[in-house]
């Protein structure tokens, strides 16, 4: 009975953690750990909940306690990898994920996470190779599909119409990872209204995720009517900025002899536009976050 109760609590907490309902998971964990203080799985779930909450110190403490009792616990070792990766120690994170892969070389999600380490260390080629390797073991693994999509975005291979993106949209249309990539794809394409709608979905799915909240505020600001004059810069990026600068410089130079008033008006207007482009978006974004 005691074992059943513990298993039931663990299953319930696992479901809450899967949906990132960490506040509810913590409440349930507190009760369960009072009842079963020596249960390693509950300790590991506590470490995971702390990790999702950003409480990395407590997460480290809990996961180290698990490893003292069970040094080969794969879930605990994987959490150590995630904590190390988040800390920014890429060399150690790589060592940890390689050791996990040596223990379980056919587990596709590990290839996806190793690929993320490679992307962060600017090794996109190896990241793509890892995604392909992972998909060799599980062609539909969402992590490897997402990694491949990210590599496509970085290498600018067809953007949102990349094959990997298409497969993710078919297989995992509502997963947070898919939505986040779709949001990036729409942003790349200049569809800020679409990106904002996806960001709203992400915030609903994970309301405690600050990255999604920031993204929603960013896209809401970008889609605001007062940002319309900046649309060419958003759509075409640096090429548009460079073209505008050069056009204004050439125009001012050509006009300053023939019509100095017009040249002055263009120069002043452009100065106002530059100040507006630098000052208004961050101000609007702060207002959206309030």
């Amino acid at each position: 009975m005691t074992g059943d109760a513990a298993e039931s609590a663990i299953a319930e907490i696992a479901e809450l953690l899967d949906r990132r309902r960490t506040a509810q998971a913590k409440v349930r964990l507190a009760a369960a750990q009072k009842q079963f203080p020596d249960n390693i799985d509950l300790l590991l779930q506590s470490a995971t909940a702390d990790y999702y909450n950003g409480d990395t110190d407590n997460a480290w403490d809990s996961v180290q306690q698990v490893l003292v009792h069970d040094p080969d616990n794969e879930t605990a070792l994987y959490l150590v990898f995630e904590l190390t990766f988040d800390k920014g120690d890429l060399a150690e994170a790589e060592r940890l994920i390689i050791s996990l892969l040596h223990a379980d070389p056919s587990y596709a999600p590990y290839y996806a996470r190793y690929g993320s380490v490679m992307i962060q260390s600017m090794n996109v080629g190896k990241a793509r190779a890892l995604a392909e390797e992972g998909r060799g073991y599980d062609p539909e693994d969402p992590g490897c599909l997402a990694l491949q999509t990210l590599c496509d975005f970085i290498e600018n291979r067809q953007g949102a119409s990349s094959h990997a993106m298409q497969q993710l949209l078919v297989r995992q249309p509502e997963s947070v990872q898919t939505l986040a990539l779709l949001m990036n794809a729409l942003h790349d394409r200049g569809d800020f209204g679409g990106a904002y709608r996806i960001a709203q979905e992400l915030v609903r799915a994970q309301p405690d995720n600050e990255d999604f909240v920031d993204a929603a505020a960013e896209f809401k600001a970008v889609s605001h009517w007062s940002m319309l004059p900046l649309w060419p810069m958003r759509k075409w990026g640096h090429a548009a900025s460079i073209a505008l600068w050069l056009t204004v410089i050439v125009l001012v130079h050509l006009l300053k002899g023939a019509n100095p008033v017009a040249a002055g008006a263009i120069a002043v207007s452009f100065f106002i536009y530059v100040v507006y482009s630098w000052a208004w978006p961050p101000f609007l974004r702060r207002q959206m976050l309030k």
Partner: protein
Amino acid sequence: MSENDNNLLKPSIGKMEIARAPYSVTTCFMVGFLGGFFAALAILLANSARLNRLNRDALVLGAATFVYLAVFAFLAWTEQGGSLLAAVKEMTGERGLRYMIQVFGVILCGVGYLLHYKEQRSTDYMGLDRPSPWVMGIVCVVIGGIVQIAVVLALFKNIIS
């Protein structure tokens, strides 16, 4: 596991080899536009160092510098070059040479973007923190300016004197 798998699972990151987020494309463009070719070269070399790819980029940036110096040597030392420079000054005024230096600076930034666009996009997608542009930007513009003046004085000394 195949041999390819074994290679894939060999560590790629040594203790001293982790690439750092580069200065942004906007920073590079502003430095190149304001400081000219050698300022752009300085900021791109800084990015290459941060990305641990100085060896890979040295050939391209070296070739670009050679082409730049060759163009200015052509303008300074040949009759056709002198005529071309005079024509540019007629169109743009006495600042024609300065505008050319700035245009080459922007062009070099474009070359730098082609070299580093994957790393720039990786930085954006992974949300990595970029370094503050101000100190390096000012240093590059100042150094670039000093080097540019020295080059102009060396190449155009006959015209100046």
